């Protein structure tokens, strides 16, 4: 596959942009339809598969402006309806098209807190970009306006310029709110509640804040410094950060309310309990949950064995089980850690893969081999209980079920053995039981997720929850949306109470 360099992409964007600006008249819808969708500049796959740096290098100013000019400025703005936090997308795109980048980020910040993160990891192709009129006119969601890339562009510009404006904070109310978990839901709640003038303490079990954004999503997809900057912004707003503090063990949730003076608690502890396949051989040496593999590599930085004290398995042939973004992350991480071959094994076809198309494409470019309509049946070990192979079985798509989806059916007698020394299981997470087990009266559903009402309030007084601990494993932006809702409910509840000196 030939790689178009960022410089080449910028050069062609320059030419096209100058042509359009030289027209000296407002663009017609026909002009806009004719602008090619701007490709995201990426590091060369050959180079990036051996480094941890971000794969996508971001639009050049010319590409960004050109891409924003593609927007048809639809009156009904279907894109806004596709955004879980309802960013005024046409308005921010218009600002970029006019060359007013600072105004663009200001529009986004009216509703979103983490644009640099969401611009990178949101599944835009199923959210804001899915209903885009331009994409519909061009008969492909791949040709919709690249809203996410533009969000990232203005967020990066703002951050790099050092012009991030601290939000205004209301005078102190004397009320205190505990936020448990520092992932996207917790970060959002902390910011919104602090803005209303309440004191906020963020509790994090790990030694570094950021939750899944730092332990799960790899550096090559979301650089740690971007997350750190968001945390720094919270600390600058006066949010207190308590790391190495696991609520439920270091302190019970109820004690925070009854003894430590917190007026409300938000639980945003995420979906942190890895699922396994329940097949023979899963506890052999060399079988890891994607959580473990990625946490070692990301948060613990085991990719740098000279500096990091945390070891990571040195693998030659790796099988990754699953078809989601986490499976792609684990497979691409294994490539970067020097595996000779990485095999992604998925029970259905590529169409059903929950991973983003972009991530699937990146994984393929980097050399991950896809084995579709196959699944692991058992993992085989040697005399030391080390993985030496994996027995797989083939599947075919059967008749459509009630939902119209064709479910995979095992092909009898199609078993075969794949030679691998490492198996990474990336088939999802269940909710973490720690808070549930140590907080009597906190209602959960059959999956162990905390149940909440429409405001995010749990069965316990003054206790709210949101993000994956409520939704099951979902996305960053949904967690953020839930956080905003719960924060609003907390702020309303506290506003009804008398001010405390």
């Amino acid at each position, binding site marked *: 596959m030939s790689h178009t360099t960022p410089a080449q992409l910028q050069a062609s964007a320059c030419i096209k942009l100058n042509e359009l600006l030289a027209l000296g008249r407002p663009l017609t819808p026909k002009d806009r339809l004719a602008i090619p969708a701007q490709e995201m500049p990426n590091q060369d796959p050959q180079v990036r598969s051996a480094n941890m740096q971000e794969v996508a290098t971001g639009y050049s100013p010319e590409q960004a402006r050109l891409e924003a000019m593609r927007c048809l400025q639809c009156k009904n703005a279907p894109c806004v309806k596709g955004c879980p936090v309802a960013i005024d997308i046409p308005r921010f795109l218009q600002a970029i098209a006019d060359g007013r980048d600072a105004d663009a980020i200001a529009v986004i910040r009216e509703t979103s807190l983490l644009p640099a993160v969401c611009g990178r990891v949101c599944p835009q192709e199923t959210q804001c970009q899915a209903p885009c009129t331009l994409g519909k006119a061009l008969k492909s969601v791949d040709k919709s306006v690249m809203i996410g890339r533009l969000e990232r562009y203005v967020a990066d510009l703002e951050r790099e310029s050092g012009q991030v404006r601290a939000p205004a904070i209301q005078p102190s109310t004397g009320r205190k709110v505990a936020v448990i978990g520092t992932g996207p839901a917790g970060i959002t709640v902390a910011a919104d509640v602090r803005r209303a003038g309440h004191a906020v303490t963020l509790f994090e*079990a790990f*030694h570094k804040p950021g939750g899944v954004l730092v332990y799960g999503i790899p550096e090559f997809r979301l650089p740690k410094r971007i997350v750190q900057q968001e945390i720094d912004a919270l600390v600058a707003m006066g949010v207190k950060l308590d790391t190495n*503090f*696991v609520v439920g063990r*270091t302190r019970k949730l109820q004690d925070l309310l009854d003894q430590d003076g917190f007026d409300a608690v938000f639980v945003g502890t995420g979906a942190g309990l890895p699922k396994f396949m329940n097949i023979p051989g899963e506890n052999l040496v060399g079988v890891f949950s994607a959580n*473990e593999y990625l*946490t070692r590599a990301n948060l*613990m*930085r085991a990719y740098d064995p000279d500096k990091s004290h945390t070891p990571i398995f040195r693998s030659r042939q790796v099988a990754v089980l699953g078809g989601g973004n986490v499976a792609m992350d684990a497979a691409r991480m294994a490539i970067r850690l020097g595996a000779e071959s990485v095999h992604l094994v998925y029970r259905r076809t590529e169409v059903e893969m929950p991973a983003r198309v972009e991530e699937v494409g990146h994984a393929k470019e980097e050399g991950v081999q896809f084995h579709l309509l196959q699944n692991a049946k058992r993992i085989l070990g040697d005399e030391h209980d080390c993985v030496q192979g994996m027995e797989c079985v083939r599947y075919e798509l059967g008749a459509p079920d009630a939902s119209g989806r064709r479910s995979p059916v095992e092909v009898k007698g199609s078993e075969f053995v794949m030679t691998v020394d490492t198996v990474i299981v990336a088939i999802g997470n269940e909710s973490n*039981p720690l808070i549930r087990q140590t907080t009597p009266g906190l209602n959960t559903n059959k999956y162990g997720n905390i149940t909440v009402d429409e405001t995010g309030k749990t069965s316990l007084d003054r206790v709210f929850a949101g993000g994956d601990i409520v939704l099951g494993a979902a996305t960053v932006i949904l967690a953020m949306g839930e956080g905003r809702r719960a924060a609003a409910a907390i702020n309303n509840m506290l506003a009804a109470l008398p001010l405390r000196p």
Partner: protein
Amino acid sequence: MHQIISRTQLSAEVFRMEVAAPLIARERQAGQFVIVQVDLDWGERVPLTIADADPVAGTITLIFQSVGRTTHLLADKQVGDTVAAILGPLGQPTHIEKLGTVVCVGGGIGVAPMHPIAQAMKAAGNHVVIIMGARNRELLIMEEEMRRIADELILVTDDGSYGRKGLVTQPLKELCERAPKPDCVVAIGPPIMMKFCAETTRPYGVHTLVSLNTIMVDGTGMCGGCRVTVGGKTKFVCVDGPEFDGHQVDFDNMMKRLRSYKTREDADHHQCHLDLELARKA
């Protein structure tokens, strides 16, 4: 940051440290552990057992063997130095109740986590028999503390340099043959010792708890690195344990899993000994 209040070298590779950790000292219960990290940027997260705690002084006591990079770095710290991060208390506390006669078997530094359990079992009104074992006299730790708790104390060394010569399983077997049989056995020590303690009590049908110390990253259920097979099912030591029914644990698989990163650890251990050697010569 947690300041080191006291430091004692108990044997060539075993250290006892009292560190400031007021929140953990207040909440911890017998059977729980902590995750320790010596460097926030590059340090590994390792599980260590809590040997004792003083909620008034706000301190916990860690007893550890210097076997890997983190424990080497920890052992090098002096009074007044700080430990970057201590997370806890983690794991399910030991279920303590009045059972009758409880036999506590501690091997090597397994005596350290046994101490709070024996203490709590005694406080609950049990008749507490303690068997302490080590390779030799020099490696036997916390004898005084355990003597204060024990209704009966049995000391065993492999080489016979102190107490009875032999393995902890011998007096354990004798106790199982005594009438009435013990009501519960708690065994903590090297995996191989726990395995054989469980095998010793199995024919007598004496309920035997073991406390497992496996490889962990987060210690809160997130990574699954600590998983063990118990009664044919996968369990997480960090959130389901660390204590399990010893008769149900697949020790052979657990021991192999413990060796997952052995090459790396051996290299670190070797490097550390070279460093010590050089320091001694300098």
